[in-house]
């Protein structure tokens, strides 16, 4: 891959709506209301209007609430925007970062100059995957359901539980290491008014939380929320006219359906980040020690730890030791999940959580993260992670390197 996208585009605005657990008595917003709410925040941050995106790009993530055959065009209609190019996110939790790369490529090619990228979902108000509601139609049809549902596979808790058991079999990791990640995200959530669970918990509380799918416990699991996020990406040239604090895309790397080893018997403790991350670091021209803040895809601590290894922050199998030795808080020597992550912040559906690391990285690089601001943060590493393949670990793995300077 060439260096062609380095410094070509920058994030100039971002927004994240308040999240909701849709408790009785709360006003229940629809998915398009969340999209508009997030877009309005991003436009306000950038000092732009929706009219600035007529003839430009509109990126829309898949949502389980949508159920149309042309959701991105429907969103354009609902927002009253007439874009030249629609970008559709179809990679679960990697959608947000995938759309940033697609938008950057389109800007680089001169098709558009800027794009508004939105995503929202309401898993607590529609059939989806939230406990107590029926499963969504799209989750109960197709070959993956046919060979998982009737077999008794219990969703992501179970699938990541299988990955975690195998990992713990191959490498020296203690549950305490994962607990440190979970405790840290909650500490960061306590500093973020937008996070859904803000009461700090102790390592002991983590260790003793209820087993859902052994070894995965309640405090290992991402909570579902209703909510929406958005960001605005523009050519570097335009970005400078919009803001004095652009968050530049310095590098990106991506792989879907990565196999570590053979296709039929891959090592499921290794993710596609072993390919995506080095690609992104190379394009950005940065080393691991240059990273001031790491915003991993953090729906389960095990997945975070595997990213640390597969990015090369430490050797494979030494993630536990690495976590034990580092201070993961925003004040520490390896800050992660500074917004509280999805683990404590909440996940607005399986396809939207991937916006959170991008939005938080942009906030950090612009010095807008308030009480959880990493001092002098100028380079951030960001993950997108989408989907769980059959009996393996990660369908789409994307690494972005963002920086406050070109």
């Amino acid at each position, binding site marked *: 891959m060439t260096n062609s996208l380095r410094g070509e585009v920058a994030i100039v605005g971002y927004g994240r709506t308040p999240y909701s657990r849709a408790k009785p008595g709360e006003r229940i917003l629809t998915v398009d209301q969340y999209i508009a709410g997030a877009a309005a925040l991003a436009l306000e941050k950038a000092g732009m209007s929706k009219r600035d995106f007529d003839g430009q790009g509109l990126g829309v993530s898949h949502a389980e609430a949508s159920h149309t055959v042309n959701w991105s065009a429907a969103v354009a209609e609902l927002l009253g925007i007439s874009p030249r190019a629609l970008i559709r996110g179809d990679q679960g939790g990697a959608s947000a970062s995938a759309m940033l790369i697609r938008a950057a490529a389109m800007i680089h090619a001169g098709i558009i100059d800027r794009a508004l990228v939105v995503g929202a979902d309401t898993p607590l108000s529609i059939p989806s995957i939230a406990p107590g509601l029926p499963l969504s139609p799209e989750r109960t049809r197709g070959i993956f359901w046919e060979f998982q549902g009737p077999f*008794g596979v219990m969703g992501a808790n179970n699938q990541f539980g299988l990955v975690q058991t195998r990992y713990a079999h191959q490498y020296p990791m203690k549950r305490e290491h994962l607990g440190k990640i979970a405790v840290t995200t909650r500490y960061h959530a306590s500093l973020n008014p937008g996070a859904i669970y803000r009461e700090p918990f102790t390592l002991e509380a983590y260790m003793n939380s209820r087993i859902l799918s052994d070894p995965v416990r309640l405090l290992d699991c991402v909570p579902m929320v209703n909510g929406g996020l958005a960001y605005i990406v523009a050519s570097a040239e335009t970005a400078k006219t919009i803001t004095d604090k652009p968050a530049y895309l310095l590098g990106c790397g991506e792989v879907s359906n990565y196999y570590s080893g053979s296709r039929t018997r891959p090592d499921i403790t290794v993710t596609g980040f072993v390919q995506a991350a080095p690609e992104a670091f190379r394009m950005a021209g940065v080393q691991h020690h240059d990273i001031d803040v790491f915003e991993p895809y953090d729906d389960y601590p095990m997945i975070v730890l595997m990213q640390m290894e597969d990015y090369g922050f430490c050797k494979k199998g030494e993630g536990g030791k690495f976590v034990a030795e580092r201070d993961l808080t925003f004040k520490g020597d390896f800050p992660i999940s500074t917004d509280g992550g999805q683990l404590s912040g909440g996940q607005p559906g399986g396809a939207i959580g991937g916006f959170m690391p991008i939005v938080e990285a942009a906030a950090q690089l612009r010095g807008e993260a308030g009480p959880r601001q990493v001092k002098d943060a100028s380079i951030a590493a960001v993950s997108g992670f989408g989907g769980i393949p059959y009996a393996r670990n990660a369908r789409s793995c994307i690494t972005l390197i963002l920086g406050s300077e070109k």
Partner: protein
Amino acid sequence: MAQMPQGKPLPAITDLTRPFWTAAKAGKLVMQKCGRCGTLDFLPKPWCIECGHLGLDWVEVKPQGTVYSHSTAYTVMMNDPAWKSDLPVVMCIIELDDGPRMYGQLTDCPPEKVRIGMRVQAHFEPISDAAAVPKFRPI
């Protein structure tokens, strides 16, 4: 989606997947084998994931394997509530002796006894007139 009386999900059987369900109902484990490169793979695919050959033949595979990983579910998540009466469900990734891996529930084994590397043997639980689900038990 068709439902059993007890509510557990049933597969919507297609011409692609019918050989698997029919064989399972007859107590046999079958998988697709590439007619060109010989790769055995699971779950059912439209072509060979190694070489892209469209000609895949259903062949019987040995119903023995080892536990590659395990995770015991104590709650129902992203599945039908009817599974509740089966909890805890000891879910495994089984590595079959013939090659492929598959999700499989381990029965006749308390959760605290399941181990990676444990030898297991398939058995087949009928779920409808047309289908059975392979499960495994320790050898």
